[in-house]
């Protein structure tokens, strides 16, 4: 039986047609998605990194999406595909394979500590998919890029330059240097490069090395040994837990005869104040101690201050904001910029875009105090990878004392 065409049917049909036509661009816009893989140690011994990095990456990609997504791809929205490497390098390689082969991501971003980079690099080389490391101390292969401070140019060179400035410009009598470092991969590597850099100057005498046991519950015996060697300066990379134990031991033995020129979170993590307690922190952190970092919440850098104000307003960040969070924000911007330059979701074109990436100092998307801005060199590391030295003030803030371009005060004389 033929169905009768009524006025109601015509109106319904026209409405449906108009709705479909009007909705089409929206549907098309929604379908434009760039998949970005995100691998972090959400569980396992390195989970503290993920606690700092993951919320910032998520926040930044949301922010980028809200601001119109990737414009060269017609406003494509970034879709994060998260993975947990369980703090194991081998697991990270498996997750990279999954993201590449199952999820078809265009680029991967994540914590990627140095051991993880070594394990994942062959996977990326084989699949030809680029990745950005937030905290790795080096890049490997043809598809890895890192924003973390590298052991040599990032940590060792900056530390020795600062030491030279203390000796030459501020006339501090620092000659006998003792290497004190956490006995893990990063600590050993930084120590190796520090020794190599110090050898270039006849003025310094390396009087010994004290590798700190990562499993130890107390560093008093290590501090007794340090004190017995009577160093003028102590240098090396220590992580937050090690830094806490070291300063506790220093406080117990009332050892204030040397200057600490420290690398890594064991000297610069704001959590040290909480871990040590007010009394010990005031007596140790603010006295004869300088920490290398790329981050200071008091740094007078507009882009960074705007970002800090923005994330403070969200109330989403439970963890103290530090260098890793700053790197994560920058990594998200790097992903955004290379996707914009590539104008494609093809991983090889995204990889090629890294060589064209250039974010100038002063750009609102650049969060470091580096005059050279951000460009990647042939070694896949930022060309300007300099860092700052800060000292803790009694109000828990950090004052930049080096380099002079960003310094807010001179290093105080030894007390």
């Amino acid at each position: 039986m033929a169905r009768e065409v009524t006025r109601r049917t015509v109106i319904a049909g026209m409405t449906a047609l108009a709705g479909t036509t009007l909705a089409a661009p929206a549907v098309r816009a929604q379908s434009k998605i760039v998949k970005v893989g995100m691998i972090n140690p959400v569980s396992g011994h390195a989970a503290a990194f993920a606690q700092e990095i993951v919320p910032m990456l998520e926040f930044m990609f949301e922010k980028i999406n809200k601001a119109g997504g990737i414009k060269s791809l017609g406003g494509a929205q970034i879709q994060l595909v998260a993975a947990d490497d369980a703090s194991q390098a081998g697991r990270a390689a498996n997750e990279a394979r999954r993201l590449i082969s199952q999820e078809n991501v265009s680029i991967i971003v994540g914590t990627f500590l140095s051991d993880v980079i070594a394990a994942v690099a062959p996977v990326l080389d084989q699949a030809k998919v680029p990745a950005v490391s937030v905290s790795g101390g080096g890049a490997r292969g043809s598809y890895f890029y890192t924003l973390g401070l590298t052991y040599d140019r990032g940590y060792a060179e900056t530390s020795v330059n600062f030491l030279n400035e203390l000796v030459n410009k501020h006339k501090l009598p620092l000659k006998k240097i003792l290497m004190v470092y956490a006995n893990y991969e990063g600590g050993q590597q930084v120590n190796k490069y520090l020794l190599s850099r110090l050898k270039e100057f006849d003025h310094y005498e390396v009087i010994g090395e004290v590798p700190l046991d990562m499993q130890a519950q107390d560093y008093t015996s290590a501090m007794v040994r340090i004190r017995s060697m009577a160093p003028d300066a102590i240098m090396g990379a220590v992580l937050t837990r090690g830094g806490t134990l070291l300063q506790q031991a220093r406080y117990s033995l009332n050892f204030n005869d040397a200057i600490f020129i420290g690398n890594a979170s064991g000297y610069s993590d704001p959590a040290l104040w909480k871990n040590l307690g007010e009394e010990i922190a005031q007596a140790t952190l603010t006295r004869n101690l300088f920490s290398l970092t790329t981050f200071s919440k008091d740094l007078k850098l507009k882009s960074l201050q705007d970002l800090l104000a923005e994330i403070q307003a969200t109330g989403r960040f439970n963890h103290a904001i530090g260098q890793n969070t700053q790197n994560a924000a920058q990594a998200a911007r790097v992903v955004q910029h290379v996707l914009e330059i590539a104008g494609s979701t093809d991983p090889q074109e995204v990889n090629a875009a890294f060589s064209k990436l250039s974010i100038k100092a002063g750009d609102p998307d650049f969060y470091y105090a580096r005059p050279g801005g951000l460009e990647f060199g042939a070694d896949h590391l930022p060309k300007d990878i300099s860092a700052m030295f800060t000292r803790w003030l009694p109000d828990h803030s950090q004052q930049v004392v080096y380099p002079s371009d960003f310094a807010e005060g001179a290093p105080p004389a030894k007390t």
Partner: protein
Amino acid sequence: MLNPSFWTLLRSPVPWIVLAVAVSAPLWMSPFYMSIAILTLFYVGFAMAWNIVGGISGLLSLGHSIFVGTGAILTSALFLNLGINMWLGVVIACVISALVGAVISWLDYRFRLGHLSFALITLAFAEVFLLVVLGTDFLGGASGLILPNDTGNFLQFEFGGGRGYFYLSLSLAVFALLVNLLIINSPLGYFLRCIRDNEDAAQAIGIDLLRCKMVSMAISGALSALVGAAYGRYMVFIDPYLFAGLNLTIEVVLVATIGGLGTPFGPLVATLLLIPFGEVIRGHLGGVLPGLHTFIYGALIVIVILAMPRGLVPTAQDWWQRRRRRGEAAQEKPELQRGLKPPTPMED
């Protein structure tokens, strides 16, 4: 002389069908699932090697990281620092591991260590080994060692990507299974099980305890080193905490225990189930909620241990035998009833 059941097993079509399906896997598996398969097969190798000591001999070794680490780290260090071909390095690592295993067994025999003492002694050796690796530059220290990328040069112990490593790990898993079956079905297997069940009684009937323990530990050590070297080459980065740390040994002991100690198929089945399960749930839930996959994995292990205290395979075997007996009894019953039925007048 081997137990005839060994040859019966080899004559059965089941292992050959399983092997044929496994061999064809690279043709239909995605790279992600292939990498899980490779990891699983390496763990089968580790579990099988550990089972020789922990399952068949009843010696709860927590020091197998020494052998795995020797295989992966020493082989790579010899190659990177001295240019020694990795095939030769594997042989050296296997010999050293066998000797170290024999020495540990000698200590066990000499001091008559109980099960707990043996576990603690091997744990202490493993910790010392890790500290030695972390503090020795030649072995890569805490930074580990990085092997050159695999170019597929077989003569340099390179197997050319996923497919090559799948077949390598499959071969090693099958080899380790065969070694287990050979031991279990040989006089050595009987001696080891006798020692496991009652050491004093075993000695009283003339079993050479020292020889049996040393041989089992040496075989287990060498096999662990062999699989460790292959796993290291696959990983490229020789992470000291992975290869010389305790976690890998604990994982292996866990899967072997859940599968059922003493049987070769217990560790095999448990590894084939648990390792892929852990990888897949981490892959799909790892980014959803921190630790959710670990919780699910842990909860499942607790449930399995509570529900099947003897392990998966022995419980399955019991169930199967009970079912078969019931079936046989059900078949016999009508026969019996027919036999007991009073004769009919016609039959008279």
